[in-house]
């Protein structure tokens, strides 16, 4: 059988920068090929080039050939994408190639109903009457597993959850039965139970003969869906082969690093528990009539990590904010070293705040945009009584080197640093006042998998060196397994399960925990 999509020696350059170099692969009908790589590896550029969307500044060479068995619909006739006219490309896109973009949560027009959005491609590419189109939209929504399709078709994107929006995007991508579906990070930013549903949906499409090109940084997702894997780094294919072969017996050192960096491969070995540093008793927080955190209690001992897992809206971030005394609980209280914390007024807290630090998911927005790394860290080292601080250069250099950065970053603004470097600066700022506790709210969720592993190793080293206690908030079960000694599983503001991390992973008691664990695409299974 000939391949549906055949990419040969594809190179894409932007000016002097080679984004993609000499990439070749085939996708037969009904197969899924995954391109795996980290930010800047050229995987998204490859996908966009196949759609003829590389952009005006790009120089494309090589061949992208669409062919395949004549099914119903117009013949692809070995169309050469790199030579195709803009008109021909427009006809290809939507009808023959469907695209599920990375920013699925913003890919839908907020002012139009989901149904109209999906009907668009039907209106452009078919002669269906409005009534037939409406009928087809409902069928499509049904086929992507959208509950109550008739109701949903009339809703706007902001009325849908992230998972339902992603389903709507996929419905619009498959509206015309494309023979090739390009999915660029289709499950990034989705919770794990929702990810599982989307992956099942894509697998179903593949069974029915759609070829899928999956772009992902997540090896676990890839292992579930793809039969072939192409590993890219710096625009070059470093390894390719069947999924089994590449993941089980990686040949290239980079692939091996990528696989080793996937969190959850090994369990956390913690230090013995010390005295409690944070104690929360019956903490409840309401926003209006919604109960964000409902009667949560926990004890965080010195030198240990308490993981808090849950999906979006489970109340885990509110719990972090309560622990930092950024919100006042409506009932219950949190104590720090046995002293009242949330119950005392802010002016009593301010002096004790340096003992409990925080790092955030979005490190960049937690830095004053006017300040350089030197000023930020100098402020954090200073007493806070004076503007500017009085940290010595030697202290600053020691601090940045402790988090694995070079002294040259001191003069720069955080916005010009990479995501991993930004998070390292945030960690340096958090440890500068020598805290006892650090509240980590999704600290590695925005990072590439190998950078993620480095940051987690750094946090682990700091914990051992300074005897830090972490309250570690994450939606990623692999990450939490790797870092935490004990675990709270939250759902709708309530702790549904708690215990030693390994015990929870080995024998989950609550149905929700079991569902969460079952939904994780497990590379290690």
């Amino acid at each position, binding site marked *: 059988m000939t391949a549906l999509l055949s990419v040969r020696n594809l190179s894409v350059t932007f000016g002097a920068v080679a984004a993609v170099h000499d990439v070749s692969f085939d996708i037969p009908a009904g197969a899924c090929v995954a391109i795996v790589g980290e930010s800047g590896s050229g995987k998204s550029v490859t996908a966009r080039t196949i759609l003829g969307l590389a952009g005006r500044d790009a120089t494309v060479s090589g061949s992208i050939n669409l062919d395949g068995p004549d099914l119903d619909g117009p013949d692809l006739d070995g169309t050469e994408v790199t030579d195709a006219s803009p008109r021909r490309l427009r006809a290809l896109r939507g009808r023959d190639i469907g695209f599920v973009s990375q920013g699925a949560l913003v890919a839908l027009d907020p002012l139009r109903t989901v149904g109209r959005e999906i009907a668009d491609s039907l209106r452009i590419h078919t002669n269906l009457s409005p009534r037939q189109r409406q009928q087809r939209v409902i069928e499509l929504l049904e086929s992507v597993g959208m509950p109550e399709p008739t109701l949903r078709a009339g809703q706007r994107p902001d009325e849908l959850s992230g998972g339902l929006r992603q389903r709507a995007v996929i419905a619009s991508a498959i509206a015309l039965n494309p023979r090739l579906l390009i999915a660029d990070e289709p499950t990034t930013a989705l919770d794990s139970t929702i990810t599982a549903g989307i992956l099942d949906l894509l697998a179903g499409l593949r069974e029915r003969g759609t070829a899928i090109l999956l772009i992902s940084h997540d090896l676990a997702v890839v292992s579930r869906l793809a039969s072939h894997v192409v590993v890219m780094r710096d625009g070059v294919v470093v390894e390719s082969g069947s999924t089994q072969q590449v993941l089980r017996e990686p040949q290239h050192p980079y692939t091996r690093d990528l696989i080793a960096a996937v969190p959850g491969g090994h369990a956390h070995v913690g230090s013995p528990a010390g005295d409690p540093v944070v104690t929360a008793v019956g903490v409840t927080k309401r926003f209006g009539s919604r109960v964000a955190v409902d009667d949560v209690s926990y004890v965080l001992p010195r030198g240990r990590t308490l993981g808090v897992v849950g999906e979006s809206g489970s109340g885990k971030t509110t719990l972090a904010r309560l622990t*930092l005394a*950024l919100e006042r609980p409506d009932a219950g209280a949190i104590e720090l070293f046995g002293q009242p914390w949330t119950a005392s007024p802010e002016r009593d807290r*301010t*002096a*004790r*705040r*340096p003992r*409990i*630090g*925080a790092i*955030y998911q*979005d490190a960049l*927005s*937690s*830095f*004053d*945009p*006017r300040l350089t790394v030197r000023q930020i860290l100098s*402020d*954090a080292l200073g007493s*806070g*009584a004076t*503007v500017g601080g009085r940290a010595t250069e030697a202290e600053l250099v020691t601090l940045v080197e402790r988090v694995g950065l070079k002294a040259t970053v001191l003069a720069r603004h955080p916005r010009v640093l990479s995501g991993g470097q930004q998070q390292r600066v945030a960690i340096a*700022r958090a440890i500068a*006042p020598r805290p006892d506790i650090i509240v980590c709210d999704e600290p590695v969720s925005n990072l590439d998998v190998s950078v993620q592993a480095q940051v987690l190793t750094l946090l682990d080293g700091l914990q051992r060196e300074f005897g830090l206690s972490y309250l570690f908030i994450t939606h990623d079960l692999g990450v939490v397994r790797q870092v935490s000694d004990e675990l709270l599983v939250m759902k709708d503001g309530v702790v549904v399960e708690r215990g030693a991390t390994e015990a929870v992973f080995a024998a989950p008691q609550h149905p929700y925990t079991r569902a969460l664990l079952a939904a994780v695409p497990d590379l290690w299974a």
Partner: protein
Amino acid sequence: MKRLSTVAPSVVVSLAILLFIGIAAVAPNLLAPGNPLAIHPTASFLPPSLGHPFGTDESGRDVYTRIIHGAGASVLIGITATAIGLGLAIVFGLLAGLGPRWLDFGTTRLLEVLFAFPGLLFALLFIVIYGPGVLTSTIAVGLATAPGYSRIIRSRVLVVKRAPYIEASLVLGRSRFFRVTRHLVPNVAGSLFVLATLGIGQSIVWASSLSYLGLGAVPPAAEWGAMLSGGRTYISSFWWLTFFPGLFIVLTAAATTLLGRGLHERVRS
């Protein structure tokens, strides 16, 4: 050289105009050594020529010399009025943005009432009460522009106040005073600077309008608005008496506005 090429031409031209007007305001004798008030009855109403590039007025005073010497007064009025407006606006904006809710409510309602008045009408009302003159017209223009600025500053304060980096500073145990002085004020001030440059041009136009109505500086003072007012009688026969002061008002306002825009783009990028 590379840096120069990234600056928009409009900004370069604006800077050149403002430099010229700045020199005129600080050291008028460098550009026009004559006396702006010297009368030459024999040389009245001379059209623009090499000797008198902008012509002469009804008393034979050189219009060019008067414009150069009037720059100081006009620009000073513009800057002072903007400073008064922004000064008040900073107080109101910070009070509303940082104070307790009742204070925000009170301040905002007051500003809305003031905002409902057209600015120039408000300035006229102030002059009616306190009498005409350079000082009162300057204060009047400052007062009239304050509500608009206050609103902008208040909304900036509200945005910056909730920024994650302010919260991060709180988590580090920084006092409220530190958070306001180190993070909030500088980040609000960035946009203030742009507002100020945009505002000076407007203030000069307004102050000139008041002078033209005879409520600010009065002839024979070499203030641009007053010169316009003085030349009003002769507008149909001797165009240069009103054209050149008007041109300089427009140039100054346009140059400061363009510069403000340029800075705004830069701040945003």
